[in-house]
């Protein structure tokens, strides 16, 4: 299908983009467009004006300090896959990026766009939540720092206000002894996840996050606590089941089993030396 008519304008800088988005309440920011363009083509989303933010230099930078990495929102999955930006998670982000959709999509789809779109099964919301990332959100009145847990709200829903865009993500570097993995189950290579789990374990702190179960990715609190205490076996299984049951909107034996299997796989990967 073809999209309904809209007007298009390319922003050259962040202030220009914010001014353009602020001036028109019906406008939407367009970054890589790899989710938005299909939704426009299928007329699942209607938009009167698109503001292209994909070529803004300020959104394409990446930098690192001793304790964190900052990745611009318009950095593509392919740039992360190719190691063109620093990886705060010992290569886990790079490995995860390789498994997002297909190369043609990865060359254009952006990390900021993926989070702002907030598809419940998307990769970056799950991964960045597990890594304790903070979104640096630019708006007309300046910039605010929003932890991922407060940015993600529901299915295709974030706490971003009209006229705001994500400028970058600030991601703490994992300590040298930390282990991290992302495990994804999808029935076709490149398809959205049926289940996606990111697990991080570094002795003092453990965290496991599940996506594609319910409206948004969430920290599995009981399972994370069990990991931190090195609890395994039946007690860990019970913790995982409790967390998953709390996330799924309905009692579905297949989904419970699918997610539990994936969570155990991820925990096993980071807990096994």
């Amino acid at each position, binding site marked *: 299908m073809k999209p309904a008519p809209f007007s298009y304008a390319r922003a050259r800088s962040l202030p220009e983009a914010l001014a353009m988005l602020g001036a028109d309440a019906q406008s939407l920011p367009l970054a890589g467009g*790899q989710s938005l363009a299909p939704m426009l083509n299928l007329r699942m989303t209607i938009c009167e004006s698109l503001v*292209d933010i994909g070529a803004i230099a300020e959104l394409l930078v990446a930098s690192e300090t001793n304790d964190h990495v900052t990745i611009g929102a318009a950095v593509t999955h392919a740039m992360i896959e190719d190691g063109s930006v620093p990886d705060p998670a010992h290569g886990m982000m790079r490995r995860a990026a390789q498994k997002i959709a297909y190369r*043609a999509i990865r060359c254009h789809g952006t990390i900021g766009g993926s989070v702002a779109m907030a598809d419940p099964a998307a990769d970056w919301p799950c991964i960045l939540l597990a890594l304790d990332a903070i979104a640096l959100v630019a708006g007309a009145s300046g910039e605010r720092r929003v932890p991922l847990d407060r940015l993600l709200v529901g299915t295709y829903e974030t706490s971003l206000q009209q006229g705001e865009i994500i400028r970058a993500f600030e991601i703490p570097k994992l300590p040298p002894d930390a282990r991290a993995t992302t495990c994804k189950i999808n029935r076709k*290579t490149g398809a959205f996840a049926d289940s996606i789990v990111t697990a991080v374990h570094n002795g003092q702190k453990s965290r496991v996050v599940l996506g594609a179960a319910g409206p948004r990715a969430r920290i599995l609190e009981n399972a994370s606590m069990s990991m931190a205490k090195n609890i395994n076996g039946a007690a860990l299984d019970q913790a995982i089941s409790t967390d998953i049951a709390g996330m799924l909107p309905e009692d579905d034996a297949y989904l419970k089993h699918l997610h539990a299997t994936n969570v155990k796989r991820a925990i096993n990967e980071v807990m096994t030396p």
Partner: protein
Amino acid sequence: MTMVNLTINDKKVTCDIEDRTNLADFLRDTCNLTATHLGCEHGACGACGVLVDGTLTRSCLKFAVQCDARHVTTLEGLDQDAVMNALREGFHHEHGLQCGFCTPGMLMAARDLLLRHPNPDEQDIREALAGNLCRCTGYAGIVRAVARASKRLSDSKIKSGG
């Protein structure tokens, strides 16, 4: 309507187009470059693969206005490309096409793979082509065609000492 200036297969093109026109329709309907095929129009089938500034792109997911001031390369623009010629030979020899609808996209995705990964194994080829659908289901021949092209290119590199 917006006026765009872009370069397509090394030729400058200036045109007034509707903002919602996708790049694939612009290439086919306005530029008469019909090697680029439109299958699903939502990024799932891969038949519309082109290069924008050398980067593999689904032209159903780019609006032509986004390509203002950029260089677009379609399959027609790769007649003299060594990797593409090796792939063409491979597809011919290994029966890599039946109806041919998916072939342009398969060729573009396979060329991108071979440029990034000179010696892919079967698993690499299958993963790289996972986003390109062949409704004839002729995948076995396609995978063999890409493997053959890869071998031919590495053999010719050894022979030329490169």
